[in-house]
C-alpha cells in the first residue's frame, strides 16, 4: 500500500470511528428523515381517520325534493347526523361532538327551481390547530362541494343532458416543451414537476457539500486538537499526499453519509405519497446517461472546491470546535448563491448583478448541476471550468499552507492564544 492509500484508509477509518462524526453527522441525519416521516405519517393517518369518522350535523329546514337530494348526497361521503327542526342546531351539534353543521334553509328547493343559486349555512367547529382539525376543515368543504355537484348532476340529467359532458365539456390534449425536451403533459403539471426538480437538485448538492465541508475541517482540526499533526508532518511523506488524503477521505465519508441521508429523504417522501398524493405521471430524470455522469462530475468538482476551502480554513483553527464554527461562517456564502440558482436564472439578471453572482464560484455548483440535468453543454462547460479553476487555485493555496509553518502556527483571529513551547 502506497503512502497516499495508507493515509486515505487511516482518514476514513478515523472519521468513521469517531462517534461525533458517525452519530452526529451520519447516523442521526440519515435516521432523522425516516423517523420524521414515520412520525408525520402516523400523525397524518390518525388525523385522516379521525377527520373521516367525525360526524357532521345537518338540519334540513326546507324538506323539498332538492334539499332531500342534497342531504342524501352528503350522506354518501360523510358520517351524517340529521337534526330535528325546533332545536338549537349549534348547541345540538356541540352536544353530539359534530365537527361541522350544515343548515339547509327554507326556500332552498324553490331557489333552484327558479334558476337562482340556493343559500346554505355551514359552520365548522375546530378544537385546535392539530393535523386532524386542519384535515377535517378541508374535508368539510370537500363534502359540501361534492354534494353540490351531486345536485348539479341531477339537475343536468333532468334536463336530458349527460352530466359528465355538461360539467367537463372540453378534453384538451397538452404538449409542453421545456429546454428542447417534449412532455405530453399540461404546462401546470410540468411547472409543478419543475419546481420539485429545481429545488431538489441544489438541495441534494447542498447536503453533500455541507457534510463534506464539516468532515474536511474536522479531519484537519482533529489532528491539531489531538496533537498528531506535528508527528504526521515529520514523517517521510509528501505534504501533498497528506492534503489529498484529507480531501479524498472526507469526500468518501461525505458520499457515504449523503447516500444515507438521501435514502432517508426518499423514505420520507414515500410516506407522503402513500398517504394519497399521486406520484408524478412521468419520471423527470436526467436527459441521458451522459447527463447523469455530468451531474456526478459537477457535484464532485463542486465538492472538491468547497472541501479544499474548508481545509484551508481548518489550517487556521485551533481545534474541532473553532474549525466547525469557521465552516459555519462559510455556509451562508454557499447557501445564498445556491438558493438564488434555485429561484432565478442568473443569466437573465441585469448585467452588474449577473457579473457579481456569476463571479461567485459557489453559484456554479447549482448552475453546473442544473446544466447537467438539462444537458446544456455550453453553460455546463463554463461552470465546470470556472469551478475547476477555483479548485486548482484553492488546492495550490492549501498545499502552500501545508508546506509552510502556518499549518502549525496559524490560528483564527478569535482563537484563544496558545502557550508556546520551550
Amino acid at each position, binding site marked *: *500500500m502506497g*503512502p497516499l492509500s*495508507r493515509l486515505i484508509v*487511516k482518514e476514513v*477509518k*478515523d472519521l468513521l*470511528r*469517531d462517534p461525533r462524526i458517525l452519530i452526529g453527522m451520519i447516523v442521526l441525519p440519515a435516521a432523522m428523515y425516516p423517523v420524521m416521516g414515520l412520525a408525520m405519517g402516523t400523525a397524518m393517518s390518525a388525523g385522516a381517520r379521525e377527520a373521516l369518522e367525525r360526524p357532521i350535523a345537518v338540519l334540513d329546514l326546507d324538506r323539498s325534493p332538492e334539499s332531500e337530494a342534497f342531504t342524501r348526497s352528503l350522506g354518501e361521503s360523510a358520517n351524517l347526523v340529521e337534526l330535528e327542526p325546533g332545536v338549537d342546531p349549534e348547541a345540538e351539534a356541540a352536544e353530539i361532538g359534530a365537527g361541522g353543521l350544515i343548515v339547509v334553509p327554507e326556500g332552498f328547493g324553490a331557489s333552484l327551481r327558479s334558476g337562482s343559486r340556493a343559500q346554505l349555512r355551514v359552520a365548522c367547529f375546530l378544537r385546535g390547530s392539530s393535523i386532524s382539525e386542519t384535515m377535517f376543515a378541508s374535508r368539510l368543504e370537500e363534502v359540501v362541494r361534492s354534494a353540490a355537484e351531486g345536485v348539479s348532476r341531477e339537475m343536468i340529467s333532468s334536463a336530458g343532458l349527460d352530466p359528465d359532458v355538461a360539467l367537463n365539456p372540453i378534453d384538451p390534449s397538452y404538449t409542453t416543451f421545456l429546454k428542447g425536451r417534449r412532455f405530453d403533459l399540461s404546462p401546470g403539471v410540468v411547472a409543478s414537476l419543475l419546481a420539485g426538480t429545481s429545488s431538489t437538485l441544489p438541495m441534494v448538492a447542498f447536503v453533500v457539500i455541507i457534510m463534506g465541508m464539516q468532515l474536511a475541517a474536522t479531519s484537519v482540526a482533529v489532528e491539531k486538537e*489531538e*496533537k*498528531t499533526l*506535528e*508527528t504526521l*508532518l*515529520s*514523517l*517521510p*511523506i*509528501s505534504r501533498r499526499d497528506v492534503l489529498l488524503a484529507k480531501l479524498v477521505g472526507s469526500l468518501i465519508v461525505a458520499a457515504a453519509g449523503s447516500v444515507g441521508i438521501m435514502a432517508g429523504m426518499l423514505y420520507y417522501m414515500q410516506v407522503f405519497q402513500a398517504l394519497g398524493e399521486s406520484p408524478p405521471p412521468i419520471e423527470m430524470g436526467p436527459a441521458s446517461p451522459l447527463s447523469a455522469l455530468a451531474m456526478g462530475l459537477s457535484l464532485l468538482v463542486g465538492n472538491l472546491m468547497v472541501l479544499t476551502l474548508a481545509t484551508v480554513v481548518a489550517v487556521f483553527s485551533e481545534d474541532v470546535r473553532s474549525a466547525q464554527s469557521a465552516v459555519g461562517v462559510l455556509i451562508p456564502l454557499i447557501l445564498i448563491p445556491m438558493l438564488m440558482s434555485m429561484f432565478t436564472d442568473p443569466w437573465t439578471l441585469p448585467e452588474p448583478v449577473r457579473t457579481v453572482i456569476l463571479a461567485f464560484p459557489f453559484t456554479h455548483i447549482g448552475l453546473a448541476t442544473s446544466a447537467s440535468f438539462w444537458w446544456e453543454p455550453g453553460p455546463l462547460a463554463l461552470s465546470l471550468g470556472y469551478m475547476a479553476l477555483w479548485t486548482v487555485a484553492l488546492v495550490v493555496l492549501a498545499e502552500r499552507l501545508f508546506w509552510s*509553518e502556518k499549518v*502549525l*502556527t496559524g490560528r483564527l483571529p478569535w482563537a484563544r492564544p496558545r502557550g*508556546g*513551547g*520551550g
Partner: protein
Amino acid sequence: MLAVAVRDLVKRYGRVEALRGLSFSVEEGEVYGLIGPNGAGKTTTLRIIATLLRPDSGRVEVFGLDALERPLEVRRIISYLPEEAGAYRNLTGEEYLRFMAGFYAEDEGELEEMVERGAEISGLGDRLRDKTKTYSKGMKRRLALARALMVRPRLAILDEPTSGLDVVHAHHVRRVIREFAEEEGVTIIVSSHNMLEVQQLCDRVGLIHRGRLVEEGAPEELLGKYGASNLEDVFVEVVRVGAAE
C-alpha cells in the same frame, strides 16, 4: 561523523526573537540534551531540525544533508517526538504503530518487525489492542516514544519526553531512551526543562537561554567547571554570570 550541525540559527515569531544565533553540533551515537527554561527556544530548535519550521537565517545539517534544502530526505532518517504528541483516538495502539511503520518499512516483513519492536518498547502488552482514547497520558507517551524509536532512525529528536508523566511512566521512558541509545547506537537529541533528568540521560548537554547556547559539555565536566552538585545549579550560575557580564 557529525549527526547534527546547527549554525547561527535565527528565528522570529513576529516581534519575538525565539532563536538568536544558536549553534551546536551532535556527534553520531551521542545522546545530546538541550536544556533550558520554558520559552528558551528548545522546541523551536527541535522543530527546525525536524524540518517542520524554517529559520529566518542559519543552517542545519543532519548527517550531511541540508535540512532546509532536502527536508524529505532528512525526514527519512529522523524520527521526531513532539511535546505532548497524541495518537489517533479511534485507532488501537497496534493500528497506530502499524500505520506509522508503513511509511518506513520496505516490505511486509520489515513492517511486522517494526510493529513488534514498537510493542516491546511501549511495554503496553494487551492494551495495544484498545483504542488510544482509553489510554492515560503516560500510556500515550509510551506509545508515541515506541512509534519514534521502532523505526530505528539514525536520529531521534525527543521534545520533553517525560513532561507531565508520573514517576513510573517517566522512569520507563528514561530507561527505554538510555537502553535504545546504547543497544542500537541511535543518535538522540532530547530536550527537557528537567535538568536532573538530562544529567542522568545525556552524554553531552547544551544550555539554552533566551535563544542562545550559553554553555555546553558533558554533565560531569560542567559540574566540575562550576563546582556544582547538579545541572540546575550550573544553569543558575551560567545565567547569573552572563547577566553580570
